[in-house]
């Protein structure tokens, strides 16, 4: 694909003898939102971690706008600045205030003007409803608030693509929505995103394309409507079934 921003080309990832990703290929175009789903342990987190080279890959190639992402290369920090990542576990820096968490990398790494970044940070914080928390420490925030700050921190680096790894999985149910809303907003702005999530309704609402991963391979790649309404493979059907609940009451009535 000529206009692909991120290209994953036949990558293989092993932990010892255990092959986790076994020849994965796909690409992400600018402004595209791709959601990766799959059973627990199928390697979704590993895939995202390979993309910004937190994990080494054993074969294949990952490129961002034509530049190869390689561990131990001199340009890796530069490439990583162009890829924003938000993790499942809260990863804010506990010794810094919310604002300093956001300012650290733009000021120290990109050497941008502090005042300018501060203005941007404050307006983004306002946008996610956390302006008044700028001077708080991460320990003073709820899980949902922390994740919104983590998203703002990533955005302030002006990344070309955002990776989200189950950013709501560790949250209490009532906080999930506030984080997902921020992500929906980003999609509306035309941000390029690669999202791993177990929230199927959210996946359907936000995705341009769904990638279903199982046993180290891409089993299905389809539009959300196709994937959720007419999954082509048996495995995808089984997977989607795990999110359905049969009415217990109906069964009880039958038994009577």
């Amino acid at each position: 694909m000529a206009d692909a921003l991120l290209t994953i080309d036949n990558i293989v990832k092993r932990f010892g003898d255990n092959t986790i990703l076994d020849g994965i290929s796909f690409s992400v175009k600018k402004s595209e939102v791709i959601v990766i789903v799959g059973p627990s342990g199928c390697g979704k987190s590993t895939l995202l971690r390979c993309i910004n080279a937190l994990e080494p890959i054993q074969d294949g190639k990952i490129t961002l706008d034509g530049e190869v992402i390689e561990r131990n290369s001199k340009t890796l920090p530069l490439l990583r600045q162009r890829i924003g990542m938000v993790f499942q576990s809260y990863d804010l820096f506990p010794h810094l205030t919310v604002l300093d968490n956001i300012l650290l990398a733009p000021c120290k790494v990109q050497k941008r003007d502090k005042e300018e970044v501060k203005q941007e940070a404050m307006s983004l914080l306002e946008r996610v409803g956390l302006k008044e928390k700028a001077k708080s420490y991460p320990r003073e925030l709820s899980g949902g608030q922390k994740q919104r700050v983590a998203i703002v921190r990533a955005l302030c680096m002006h990344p070309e693509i955002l990776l989200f790894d189950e950013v709501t999985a560790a949250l209490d149910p009532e906080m999930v929505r506030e984080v997902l809303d921020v992500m929906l907003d980003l999609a509306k702005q035309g941000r390029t995103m690669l999202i791993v999530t177990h929230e199927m309704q959210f996946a359907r609402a936000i995705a341009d394309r769904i990638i279903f991963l199982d046993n180290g391979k891409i089993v299905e790649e389809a539009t959300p409507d196709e994937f959720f309404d007419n999954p082509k493979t048996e495995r995808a059907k089984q997977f989607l079934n795990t999110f359905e609940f049969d009415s217990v009451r109906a069964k009880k009535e039958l038994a009577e």
Partner: protein
Amino acid sequence: MDLNAIAEYLPLFGEAALLTVKLGILGIIFSIIIGLICAVVQYYKVPVIRRIVSVYIEISRNTPLLVQLFFIYYGLPKVGIPTDAETCGIAGLAFLGGSYMAEAFRSGLESVDKIQTESAYSLGMNKMQTMRYVILPQAISVSIPAFVANVIFLMKETSVFSAISLLDLMFMAKDLMGMYNDTVEALCLLVGFYLIILLPISIVGTIVERRVRRAGFGS
């Protein structure tokens, strides 16, 4: 007790105390530098250098300061490296303290969650920036209690400096006890001066520790 004798010895002890403090502080500063370097080397598991560091730490921790001082003071000139007593005192203290500080900092570094490094990396920070802005500040606050204990320990260890004829507090006390018969006065001054040096460190240390614990990061 002879107050006149105390008044007479006071300036001598004051001078000796200054020397003790000066050598102690310099030795501790170098201990901190050595300790930080060793801890970072061990944290990153730098090949080869890491082995050298662990050999150093074992030697440093398992030999008495007095023996280390003798090595530096009497040994180095034998292989052609000239030494003066003050430099030896500082070097000896730094040799001993470096390993203690290294252990304190290392446990601090290891207490910082791996995700901190990963999120710093994914923000585009390099190793140096990650260490400086993300890991070290968190590690140091964890190390503070061990650090304070080490500072007090090292200050106390300065009492063996008299063995390489440094005119420190211990030397002064021994000297006066030998020359005159004012043992009680000399001992009182010795204890008094050590307390004057160490109590403030201890008190400041406790305050800092409490402050850090109250700030207690944790999520």
